[in-house]
């Protein structure tokens, strides 16, 4: 009752550490929709994204005692969700990372103006797994290339290449979609 009305994070954390089922359910209800959105951005299939989320929540509740409180509980839990999604992709799919490209390509990016009326999930779903993982880690999670390289066990140069190609691909897909919309209107 105290949790429902007071909603204090410290109380919730202490109860989660005691493996209290009520506290676990409250934490689940607070975060499930947001975490499913995150999971869906990595794993395009909803059912598989939900499976990843189930595993992630189980890990969160199991290893909650290892949470030291240095960072926010939500961001710690989100990191577990992301890691679970990455593990799923690694174990269920063959991911190919393309070779490195020259540094000059990274700098020469033409960025035309865009409209905001597009579906981000549609764009992400069309990206290959390797591109999507690097793009999401860099753009959504705010990882540095060093962190991405450590997480995915690739070199920093490959991480940069993947990000460059991912952005390029997204732009292509976006403009193709815009063309289709214009043609439909005409």
């Amino acid at each position, binding site marked *: 009752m105290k949790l429902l009305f007071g909603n204090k994070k410290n109380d919730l954390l202490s109860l989660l550490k005691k493996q209290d089922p009520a506290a676990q359910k409250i934490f689940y209800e607070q975060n499930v929709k947001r975490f*499913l959105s*995150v999971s869906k951005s990595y794993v395009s299939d909803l059912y598989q994204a*939900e499976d990843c989320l189930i595993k992630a*929540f189980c890990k969160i509740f199991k290893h909650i005692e290892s949470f030291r409180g240095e960072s926010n509980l939500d961001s710690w839990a989100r990191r577990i969700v992301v890691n679970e999604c990455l593990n799923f992709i690694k174990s269920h799919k063959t991911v190919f990372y393309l070779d490195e490209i020259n540094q000059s390509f990274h700098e020469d990016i033409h*960025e035309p103006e865009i409209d905001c009326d597009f579906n*981000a999930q549609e764009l992400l779903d069309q990206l290959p797994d390797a591109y999507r993982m690097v793009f999401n880690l860099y*753009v959504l999670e705010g990882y540095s290339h060093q962190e991405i390289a450590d997480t995915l066990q690739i070199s920093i140069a490959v991480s940069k290449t993947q990000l460059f190609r991912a952005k390029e691909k*997204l732009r292509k897909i976006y403009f193709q979609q815009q063309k289709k919309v214009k043609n439909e209107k005409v």
Partner: protein
Amino acid sequence: MKKSKDTIEFEIKKQIEEREIAPSRDLWSEIELQNSNNQRSKSKMNWFLIAACLILTFSLGSVLFFLNQPSETQPELVKKTEKNTKDEIIKDPVQNNAPLAVENNDKKEVKKPLSQDKQEVISPVATGQTQLISKEPLPLKKMDIVQISNPKLMAKADSIKTPVKKKKYVDPSTLLFSVEHKDVIEKTKDGSNVATTIDLNAR
């Protein structure tokens, strides 16, 4: 200059951050189920660990307990070895001295060498035992020696066994002797074989 707000990446991030997706199925029930399974497996593991520790402690304790009691365990081993030697002794004289019994010599003559042989055979074993059983109490030794040094029983056992066996072969030396002294044998009308009086094994 283009602002970061205008890029596709920023728009994607904004959309994903603001988005909330409701699960299509009851995820909580599955999470609860997996949690309960994990807890059960944890408790099971704990029980297995406790059981394994108990078994280990008991086994180690029992091993140490039996190792620290040499007076009871070692004599058994020695007795077994003695029994084996006895069996060997019983078997060996039958094989070695079988021709002696067949040759219808006096039992007393047969018994004596047997007992001597036994003593000769037993003595090295016995000396070996004395070295092994140096820590043993004395009464056990006496019992063993008394058991082994009972020649009558051994001789009886031999006398019982030996007549049952029949000579199925002709000794080559007797055959040669009979051929060489054919005339002498023919002269004896009693039917008694000359070869029987000659102890060929006495060579």
